[in-house]
């Protein structure tokens, strides 16, 4: 392909595509987009003249990965990028630290506590992280189960407002 794209024009196009992908919702937590989640790893035009979009799975076995892949393809098709190359990026592995601050606020508003503790120390292997209740902001919460309705969430209960809630785990 001989067409050379001017850097400014390319940057504007990439920005438009990123906005397009920001409209693709996570199938499990629909208030988050796949950009909020840090699933979109790169959007760029490469020397082959084609658009390359890299996405990464969150958890290896997360069933949402397939749905996201199909949704990204559909969004690119609809945006006039049917020839885009969709790439799976495994390295570096996804981490909950890639959730944007906007994602944290959206999770809280949706009733899910955002990830709070970056790493658990080996000395406190079974220590459940202390989480703030997303409904009443109390710290008097307890973990019911490390595993919840999706791979990324743990199940908590608030002792102040008595409500159960999900916690988006650190990975």
């Amino acid at each position, binding site marked *: 392909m001989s067409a050379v794209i001017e850097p400014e024009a390319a940057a504007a196009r990439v920005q438009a595509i990123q906005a397009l992908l920001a409209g693709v919702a996570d199938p499990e937590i629909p208030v988050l987009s796949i950009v909020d989640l840090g699933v979109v790893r790169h959007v760029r035009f490469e020397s082959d003249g084609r658009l390359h979009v*890299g996405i990464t*799975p969150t*958890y*290896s*076995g*997360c*069933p949402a990965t397939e749905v996201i*892949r199909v949704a990204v393809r559909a969004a690119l098709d609809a945006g006039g990028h049917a020839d885009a*190359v*969709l*790439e*799976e*990026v*495994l*390295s*570096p*592995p*996804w*981490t909950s630290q890639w959730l944007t601050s906007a994602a944290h606020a959206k999770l809280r508003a949706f009733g899910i506590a955002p990830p709070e503790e970056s790493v658990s120390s080996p000395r406190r*292997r*079974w220590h459940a992280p202390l989480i703030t209740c997303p409904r009443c902001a109390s710290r008097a919460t307890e973990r*019911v*189960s*490390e*595993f*919840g*309705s999706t*791979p990324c969430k743990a*199940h908590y209960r608030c002792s102040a407002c008595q409500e159960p809630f999900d916690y988006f785990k650190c*990975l």
Partner: protein
Amino acid sequence: MSARAHAPSERDPAQQAAHFRHVLRLADTSLVLGQRLGEWVGHAPALEEDLGLANLALDLIGQARLLLTYAGELEGRGRDEDALAFLRDAPEFVNLTLAEQPNGDFGHTIVRQWLIDAWQLEIYQGLLGSADSRLGAIAAKALKETRYHHRFSSGWLIRLGDGTRESHDRVQAALDCLWRFSAELFCADEVDERMQAAAIAPALAELAPRWSARIDEDLAAATLKRPAAQPYPWHGRRGVHTEHLGHMLAEMQHLQRTYPGVRW
């Protein structure tokens, strides 16, 4: 979807075959263990543990999918993850013999899980610097998940072992029963030696003492005794299995065998 990291190109067919087999072994252990854990769904002692085991199963099957897809590409005969998972018979599976052992009681499942979690921690850690960047990337991802798998299984091992007399005796009995499969974990053969020589995989002999130390640490906390018997190395990784694998595959593969190529 294409993957961006590639294995070093291999012109030597024997090397290529060993590479395929090495990745397939890792995949099969995850797949078979994931299927076993899936058998617990709806039957675990409590809802929380039901969810826990199902979550572990999901991770393991996800890891197996990444590894099987890659194995199929290394083999170069057009087999994808589904063909490898559903259309091979027991002698073609090369998982650890331990992974295929039946669930037994909850303590039995926990001991099996814990032994393999501790093994996968060392294996994946050792693969991080692999000359095969794609395998290294899969290992880095799997390692993060294996850490909380081990936290789950060792946590239960300690609660059961250091719990009531009944729970202690049952989990000790499970350990005594399953220990005989542990010699296979770090028993290297020509495939492992080739992978080690090519810097694709770590030397199993170097990982064994670290695994052993971790096992002893958890056993001490669980007030359990490490069985003394020097176990016989089983050969699941060479395709020689206990009778249990065939029964498990009969259920796992039933749909695809009965309706070849079926799609939802």
